[in-house]
């Protein structure tokens, strides 16, 4: 078998175009406030990219990506909260030096499992490892028993429900419904001012591209092609001697890690973490970002996340009482009329006109995402 190149020409151009949009176009045309919002949208794009791998490539639809997003977000929030809870800042508490919500819940000492989060190194490790390990356990248990499709979706959904109840119920350790709020600095660097948000936006963009490259590499590797084969005819792949479950577990863990990075960046970008991002509703919305972008397309997922969130913000600003109708309609329309999302539209309508001249097409996908300007 011939070794595949990492990028075909048009894929490379697509990446370059997205880079131009994120690193040049948005910063040029958006004010700090909107740029910060797009920074938040980008954190959702991590999840969508992970979902393209799991769902588009692997055929595994997880309705629990919010759990991984939340795990990453909470890990980061715990670190930032500890940094913000210096004895000086918390002098009015009955136990200074612990996070404020613990004090409100009569906890007098920092729980042991919070201790390691004093270290940024450990926190980063945890952001990558905790969701991956969790996904590994969940994935191994399910895929080894050949749970798939709808069942997997519903079980992951239940996991999201459990997670929300647990986080809300253990408010002495997690901040409960309020989440972990009032985060201030990262190693002394104030994350609150606009200038910091702009910096974080670029960090977000860079990390997102790192994830995209990893995802692209996976897709072009042997594993990626086996995944696609599995989605089409799982039994045949199994009969050919491949260990189907391991591939699924791998891609599920990778998707979880991506989601977790997104969650950690969300905490930094928005300045707090809350259980509303863990539950069922956000998990399903994240699937929608992916579906709108095109479940098979990595770049589509990014555009999908940006477009849906931008539409949600704009729509809810202009027609606050009707935006649910629009959002619901979008879900239905995407599923019924454009099952391959934005990427499908591009494939069907734009690409045929550009096939003869690759350079020209660089401008064309801009039409796809132009509303995002």
């Amino acid at each position: 078998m011939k070794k595949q190149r990492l990028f075909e020409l048009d894929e490379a151009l697509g990446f370059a175009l997205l880079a131009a949009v994120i690193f040049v176009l948005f910063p040029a045309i958006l004010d700090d406030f909107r740029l910060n919002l797009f920074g938040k949208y980008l954190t959702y794009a991590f999840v969508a990219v992970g979902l393209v791998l799991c769902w588009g490539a692997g055929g595994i639809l997880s309705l629990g990506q919010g759990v991984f997003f939340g795990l990453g977000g909470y890990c980061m929030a715990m670190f930032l909260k500890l940094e913000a809870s210096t004895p000086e800042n918390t002098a009015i508490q009955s136990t200074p030096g612990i996070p404020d919500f613990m004090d409100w819940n009569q906890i007098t000492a920092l729980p042991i499992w919070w201790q390691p989060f004093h270290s940024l190194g450990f926190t980063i490790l945890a952001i990558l490892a905790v969701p991956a390990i969790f996904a590994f356990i969940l994935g191994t248990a399910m895929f080894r028993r050949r749970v798939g499709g709808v069942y997997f979706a519903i079980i992951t959904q239940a996991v999201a429900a459990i997670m929300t109840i647990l986080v809300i119920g253990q408010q002495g350790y997690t901040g409960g419904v309020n989440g972990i709020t009032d985060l201030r600095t990262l190693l002394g660097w104030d994350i609150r001012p606009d200038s910091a948000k702009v910096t974080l936006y670029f960090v977000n963009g860079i990390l997102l591209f790192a994830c995209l490259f990893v995802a692209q590499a996976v897709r072009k590797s042997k594993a990626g092609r086996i995944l696609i084969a599995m989605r089409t005819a799982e039994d045949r792949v199994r009969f050919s001697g491949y260990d189907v479950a391991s591939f699924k577990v791998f891609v599920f863990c990778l998707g979880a890690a991506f989601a977790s990075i997104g969650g950690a960046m969300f905490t930094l970008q928005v300045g707090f973490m809350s259980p509303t991002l863990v539950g069922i509703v956000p998990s399903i919305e994240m699937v929608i970002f992916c579906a709108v972008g095109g479940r098979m397309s990595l770049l589509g997922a990014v555009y999908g996340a940006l477009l849906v969130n931008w539409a949600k913000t704009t729509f809810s600003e202009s027609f606050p009482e009707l935006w649910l109708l629009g959002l619901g309609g979008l879900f239905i329309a995407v599923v019924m009329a454009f099952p391959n999302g934005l990427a499908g539209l591009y494939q069907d309508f734009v690409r045929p006109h550009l096939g003869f001249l690759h350079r020209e097409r660089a401008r064309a996908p801009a039409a796809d995402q132009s509303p995002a300007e």
Partner: protein
Amino acid sequence: MFSGYSMSELGAIFAMQGFAGLILFSVFVLMALGLAIIFGQMGVINMAHGEFMILGAYVTYMVSHVFQTWLPGLFGLYFFVAMILAFIAAGLLGMAVEWAMIRHLYKRPLDTLLATWGLSLILQQIYRSVFGAREVGVTIPDWMMGSLPLTDLIEIPINGIFVMVLTVAISAAVYVMMFRSRWGQQVRAINQNRVMAGAVGIDTERTDRLTFGIGCGVAGVAGAAFTMIGSTGPTSGQLYIVDTFLVVVFGGAASLLGTIASAFTISQAQSIMEFFLSGSMAKVLTLLAVVGILMLRPQGLFALKLRK
């Protein structure tokens, strides 16, 4: 854990908790039956199930107003009319949805999930625009809200009995339709092999539409019944959706008996744990146990053996 209670109190605890568990069981069965028909027999994931239930609740609300205004003498009986209308309204909406949306998606079950989620958002907003963002109060006839005192400690809520009787009646009706009627035979045939069923002359499209309609209609009746014990607002339907799906999946999707067995197991477990633990922890432990068991036995309690 039992210290501090006398023997007679312990007896009362078990009697009352058993009964509380039975009510919960009936509630779960009512919630899940409609979904079991749709998900189990058709493979469609209807995320708007909760919204169909709330449609039934709103129908009850409107019927109660009509009776209050025009037929105050018969107010005690309006609930039965409301349940029938709720069945019809939710059933018709279900058939319309099947025709417009679901029938195009039978080959893509995961996509029905997304599309019906969109539908649920739209229905919520419609309820909000029509009935207002606040919850509406449904007046229940007095005779249904009382309780029957058995001993000092044990009192049996009448609405609990009502829900239980209703559950038995609907389960029996669904059983008869499923296993004794021509329609049921056709549904089961289609579930086992769609192509062959079509080939032997079953009108699969019509059967599908009817099945979906009946599933939604049962959800509507459940919603009507839940006005007795829960809230009626635009987003109330969301409260039920996770429990409902878990009950169905835990029972083994294709088996109605499984749904009932799983509703029984989950409700008893939850109700017993609620008594000894705090409410939140009981809920988490129940869900964890269900997910744990599902991981070990993904096909659910009762699996229908058929060749895929």
